C-alpha cells in the first residue's frame, strides 16, 4: 500500500523527536492556525467524511444482532444452504476492508492539505 511514498515523504520531513518547532522562534500559534480558513476548511472536510461513514458502519453493524434477535428473515437461504445471515456477516467483513481503503485514500488527500498549513506555519504566516 502507500508505504513507499510514505517513507519518501518522511525523508524530507524531520519528524517527532521532541521538537519540530519552526526556526523562527517560539511554539506555533495554535489559535491562529485553528482560526485560519485553510484549517477550518480541512476540518470541515474531515468531519464531513468521517461522521457519515462512522454512523453508516455502526448502524449496519448493530442492525445484524437486531435483525437476528427480533426477526428470522436472515435465516432464509441465499445460496444453497448458506443463509442470508452469513452473507450479511461476510458483507460486514468486505465493508470493513473497503472502508479501510477508502479512509487511507481520503487521509492522503488530507495530508496534502495539512502540508500546506505546515508550510505556511514555517513561513511565519500565523504569527
Amino acid at each position, binding site marked *: *500500500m*502507500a*508505504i513507499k511514498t*510514505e517513507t519518501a*515523504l*518522511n525523508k524530507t520531513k524531520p*519528524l*517527532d523527536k521532541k*521538537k519540530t*518547532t519552526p526556526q523562527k522562534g517560539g511554539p506555533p500559534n*495554535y*489559535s491562529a*492556525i*485553528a*482560526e485560519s480558513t485553510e*484549517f477550518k476548511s*480541512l*476540518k470541515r472536510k*474531515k468531519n464531513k467524511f*468521517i461522521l457519515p*461513514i*462512522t454512523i453508516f*458502519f*455502526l448502524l449496519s*453493524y*448493530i442492525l*445484524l*444482532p*437486531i435483525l*437476528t*434477535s*427480533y426477526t*428470522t428473515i*436472515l*435465516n432464509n437461504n441465499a*445460496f*444453497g*444452504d*448458506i*443463509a442470508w*445471515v*452469513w452473507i450479511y*456477516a*461476510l458483507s*460486514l*467483513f468486505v*465493508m*470493513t*476492508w473497503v*472502508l*479501510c*481503503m477508502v*479512509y*487511507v485514500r481520503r*487521509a492522503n488527500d488530507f*495530508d496534502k492539505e*495539512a502540508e500546506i*498549513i*505546515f508550510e505556511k*506555519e514555517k513561513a511565519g504566516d500565523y504569527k
Partner: protein
Amino acid sequence: MNVIGLAFFVAIVGLTLFVTYIASKRTNSASEFYTAGGGLTGWQNGIAIAGDYLSAASFLGIAGAIALFGFDGFFYSIGYLVAYLVVLYIVAEPLRNLGKYTLADMITARFDQKKIRAAAAISTLTIVLFYMIAQLVGAGALIQLLLGIDYWVAVLLVGVMMTIYVLWGGMAATSWVQIIKAALLMVGTVLISVLVLWKFNFNILGMFTEMKSITANGEAYLHPGVKYTNGLDTISMMIALVLGTAGLPHILMRFFTVKDAKTARSSVVYATWIVGIFYVLTIFLGFGAAAFVGSDAIIAANPAGNMAAPLLAQALGGDILMSFVSAVAFATILAVVAGLVLSGASAFAHDLYGQIFKKGKATEKQQMNAARLASVGVSAFSILLALGAQSMNVAFLVSLAFCIAASANLPVIIYTIYWKNFNTTGALTAIITGLFSALILVAISPNLWAADGSMAFTGEALFPLTNPALVSVPLGFLGGWIGTLFGARADQRKYAEVDVKANIGLK
C-alpha cells in the same frame, strides 16, 4: 507430550528469548522501553497489533464457540473485526498525534491535571488486570491440558516468560514476540483451514449442506439463536466488542511505537487485513472441529470448547500438527500477556510514579528503574490473582474488559478530541461514571448471581444483562456531558492547540 511437541515449544521459547536478547541491547531509555523508540514501521506495527489482538480467546475461544454454537460463535469474529473501523476512523491518528506513552498522556495533553491522569491510569490498570487474569487463567488451563502439567506450574511458566520479555526487552522485544506469534498463528490457521476445505472437497456450498446434519442442533446450527436467545444481551455484547477495542490500553499503546499518524494509519490497515482474514478462517476452524472432532469430544476436553482447535489439528494432521498448533497457542498467549504487562507498567511507572509522584522530573535512570519495577509488580500481582481465579469464566472476564474499555475510555477519548466545550470536570466524570457503572452493573448481573446457586452468589440478579455495555457506554458519555455542564468553562486556547495537533500533527 511427545518429542516433536517439546521441540516446537523449545523452538518458540528459544526464538523469543533470542529476540529479547537482541532487543535488550537497544532498550536503554524510557522511550525505548515503552514504545521501542517509536521506530517501528507500518507493517511491523500492523502485524504486532494483530499479534496483540488475536488472543487465545480469539484463536481457541472463537473456534470452540463456532464448533459448538455455529453462527452464534461467529458473532465475536464480526465484532472484533468491525471494531478496527472505529479505531481507524476515530482514534488512531489523533491518539498518535497527542500522546506519548499512554492514554493518560493523550487526555492530559488537553487537561493537564493530576487527577485526570490518575483517573485514566486507574481505568487502564483495571482493564489490564481483568484482561490479564482472563489470559492467564485461560493459558493455565490450556497448557495444563496440552503439556499435562499442573495449573499453577502452567501459570507460573507463562508468567515468568512474559516478565522476561518485558523486563529485558521492553516494547521492542514485546513487538517482535507479537510479530512472530502473528506469523505462526496465520500459518497454522491457514493450514488447518485448507485441510478442512480439502476434506469438504473445496466445496463451500457442500460444506454448509453437510453441516446441517452433522451437529445435534441440525439446521439451527447454521442460524443465530443457538446460544444467544436474549436480544438485548446480544446487542449489548456486540456494542462492547465494537467500541471496546478502541479503548483497550495495550492496543492504544501500540500506536505510540510508530513515528507519526501516517504510519499509525498504515499499521491499522495491515492489522485489519490480517485480523479480518483470520476471522473469516475461524469459520473453517469451527466447522471443521464440529465435523471432524464432534461436539461431545470437544466438550469432554474442555466444557467451554477451548480445545476445539488443537483437537481439530490432531484429527487432521496427527500429533505433529497438534503439537504445532499447541505451540502456536502458547506463543499467542505469551505475546498478548507481554503486551498487557507493558501497558499496565506504563500506567504505573509513567503516569502514577513519573508524572504524578515525581511531577515529570524523574531522571532517565529513575524512569527506567520504575518501569522495570512496575513490570515485575504487575506480573507478580496478576500471577497471584490468576492462581486464585482458576474457576473464573474466561470469556466473561474478557467481555468485561472490553465493556470497561468502551465505557470508561472511549467517551473521554472522543470528547477530548472532538468536543470544544469539554472540560476538566467532564473528563473526570466521564472516566469515573464509565468505569464504575460497568463494574457495578457487572457486580449485580447474572454473571455473579443465580437463584439456583450456580454462580458466585445465590439470589436474583438485579441487572438482567450479562454484558452491561448497552447501559454503561451511554452512561459514560452522559457522565462526561453532565460533568462538563457543571464544570468551569473550557480553555479555548488549549482546545485550539489540541485541535490543531490532533488533526494535522503539528508539534
